[in-house]
């Protein structure tokens, strides 16, 4: 079963990666995606809001779907909330499998899904004092849609 965390605190990439291979010799590859806060247009901070309860459930459900579609030996999703500064990590997806294609594809699947279906909302704060809610992007929906019907299982 996947490890799913929604938290304000930072996470430890090396420890999370090590946990997926520790004590086992059937893991051939670990794919990961680390989402980081950019400072576009003078952004001074990103504030992430979520729907406590629903968020964790929704991520656990999609991680279970990834585990059904690909032969994963492990899967970790950590999404931060609250105030995040430019250069800081926002989200981590880790997938492990005997074979690289399963790890790489399921990692891309999960991050595409998180961008479009997980109940998080981003507010951008700027050095000027202005702030705005990030709008959903059609290209993210398209990236998520390409997984419908594809993949194994």
């Amino acid at each position, binding site marked *: 079963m996947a490890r799913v965390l929604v938290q304000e605190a930072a996470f430890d990439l090396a420890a999370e990666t090590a946990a997926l291979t520790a004590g086992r010799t059937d893991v051939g590859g670990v794919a990961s995606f680390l*989402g980081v806060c950019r400072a576009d247009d003078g952004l001074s901070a990103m504030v992430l809001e979520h729907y406590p309860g*629903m968020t964790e459930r929704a991520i656990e459900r999609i991680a279970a779907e990834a585990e059904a579609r690909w032969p994963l030996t492990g899967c970790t999703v950590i*999404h931060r909330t609250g105030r995040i500064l430019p250069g800081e990590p926002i989200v981590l997806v880790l997938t492990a499998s005997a074979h690289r294609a399963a790890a790489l594809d399921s990692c891309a699947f999960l991050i595409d899904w*998180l961008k479009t*279906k997980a109940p*998080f*909302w*981003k507010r951008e704060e700027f050095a000027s004092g202005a702030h705005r*809610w990030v709008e*959903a992007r059609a290209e993210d929906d398209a990236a998520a849609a390409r997984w419908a019907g594809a993949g194994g299982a």
Partner: protein
Amino acid sequence: MRVLYFAWLRQKIGTAEEEIAPPPEVRDVAGLVRWLAQRSPAHAQAFADPRQVRAAVNQDFAGPEHPVAANDEVAFFPPVTGG
């Protein structure tokens, strides 16, 4: 019925959560939106463009025709922007 608001809906309405008792003719998400929009000018403004509003009933995404009942938790929010 417990109603939750997130992101700019929360800001526009001025509260994150309210306990409501809509009349029996409010049977689905679309009906609830119409009823909520009449509660105050702030509600009206938040629900002015229904295409910008998404809903969840009992923590599952739900479309306009999804039924709502007295003990449900119903949430309204803009399209999600995580990841």
